[in-house]
């Protein structure tokens, strides 16, 4: 059935395709046509989401079956080698942060707007404010100073101050303290950089390009970095720190080493 013919019939044929899509029961050409449509149709996205939720309930009829013990080892072996995570409460010097691999560029969404990053930003907020154990262990590591600890502690007890933890693989790399548009970045686990590289703090807006906030270098003293935010916190999805060549803010971040959700 052509799209013109379907439009003459109203939305019902698309609704039917949404059901078939949720069940993976469409022919390849139907699937391709529906995927082109669903990208622009909120109603169909809603129907697919509902259909997939319902279909997932059907999965319960199968019941769980314990997979062979070696299956996780097979999966684990396929994961790219990642830096060994250092617990945030470790008194030892944190491992140097490696760049967080960014999702491949897509013409659908920029990386900070990708579901992966948005999901991380959305739920990292729960980590920041909702998980007491994490809050309790969010101590300053590495070269954390008494002054920095006092700053963070003061912010946590100030209702007008927002604490944003910037993590890499749940290792705290920095803490951002925000009061209105004024911010202080407290490095907690950022390694020294070569002389020709710098860190850049980014503000990731709900829509639009990331805004470079400040360029800084994190020495052994891990001194707080003052900054003025270009955007209000309410318009911010997340903050990120990247490693960049040179000592200026580039047009966009290249190697992100830590990220944290901005809002609850």
């Amino acid at each position: 059935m052509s799209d013109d013919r379907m439009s003459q019939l109203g939305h019902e044929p698309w609704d039917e395709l949404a059901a078939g899509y949720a069940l993976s029961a469409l022919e390849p050409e139907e699937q391709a046509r529906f995927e082109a449509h669903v990208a622009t149709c909120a109603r169909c996205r809603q129907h697919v989401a509902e259909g997939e939720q319902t279909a997932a309930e059907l999965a319960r009829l199968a019941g769980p079956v314990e997979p062979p013990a070696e299956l996780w080892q097979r999966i684990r072996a396929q994961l790219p080698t990642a830096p060994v995570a250092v617990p945030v409460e470790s008194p030892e010097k944190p491992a140097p942060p490696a760049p967080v691999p960014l999702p491949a560029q897509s013409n659908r969404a920029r990386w900070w707007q990708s579901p992966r990053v948005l999901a991380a930003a959305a739920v990292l907020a729960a980590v920041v404010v909702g998980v007491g154990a994490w809050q309790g262990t969010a101590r300053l590591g590495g070269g954390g100073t008494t002054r920095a600890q006092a700053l963070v502690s003061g912010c946590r007890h100030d209702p007008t101050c927002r604490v944003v933890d910037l993590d890499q693989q749940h290792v705290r790399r920095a803490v951002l303290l925000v009061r209105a548009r004024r911010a202080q970045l407290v490095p907690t686990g950022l390694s020294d950089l070569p002389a020709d590289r710098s860190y850049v703090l980014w503000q990731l807006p709900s829509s639009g390009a990331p805004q470079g906030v400040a360029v800084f270098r994190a020495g052994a003293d891990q001194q707080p970095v003052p900054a003025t935010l270009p955007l209000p916190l309410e318009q911010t999805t997340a903050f990120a720190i990247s490693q960049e060549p040179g000592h200026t803010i580039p047009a966009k971040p290249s190697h992100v080493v830590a990220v944290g959700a901005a809002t609850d």
Partner: protein
Amino acid sequence: MKGATAVKRESGPGAPGAPVDGSTAVADDVLAARVAAGDDAALETLYGRHGAACYGLARRIVVDATLAQDVVQEVFLAFWRRNTFDPQRGSVSTWLLTITHHKAVDAVRREDRRHSRQTTLEALDSSGAAEPEPLEQVRARLRADEVRAAMSRLPAEQREALLLAYYGGYTQREISAMTGVPLGTIKTRTMAALRKLRDSLPDMPEATGSYGPVDEDTRGSS
């Protein structure tokens, strides 16, 4: 958590993104965020929680154990490499089971194993399945009973269309050819069956449908 040899099981397929026992266990969506940040220990925990449900579903569809393991491996690697989980779209459990289903159907079509598919409610009795943790076992069993009861209330022809598609892995056109029922009727029945099932199941979460376009890595190409 490199080199771990045992995966700790915390909960099962009934977890809608939060610890099921009110314990201090980290919620699924928080773990998903950690996976997005490259935390393999979080992936391992999610595997411990949902791997058995995914494997059980894959086994039902593809039957062959090795093929089912390949499916589950693909699912969790896809979650690691290109995690498109969106809390607004549903729970982590729903996401994993949806992707498991897509990949299992792809696999069974590639392998042409349709002859052995189990597509009746009776064949889907999971009473012999391996047991997860006791609390979650009870919750999963109760939910499965609810789903089974809701399926039983569907008209037989709608139930057949749903099960042939979901567990049989047949396309609607194939179902039409198999049953001799016009394709348009199959489509209508399938849509009606899904809606009735959703309406009759208690505690179905809201779906906002606010997620982005389909992910090629997680959605099969068939």
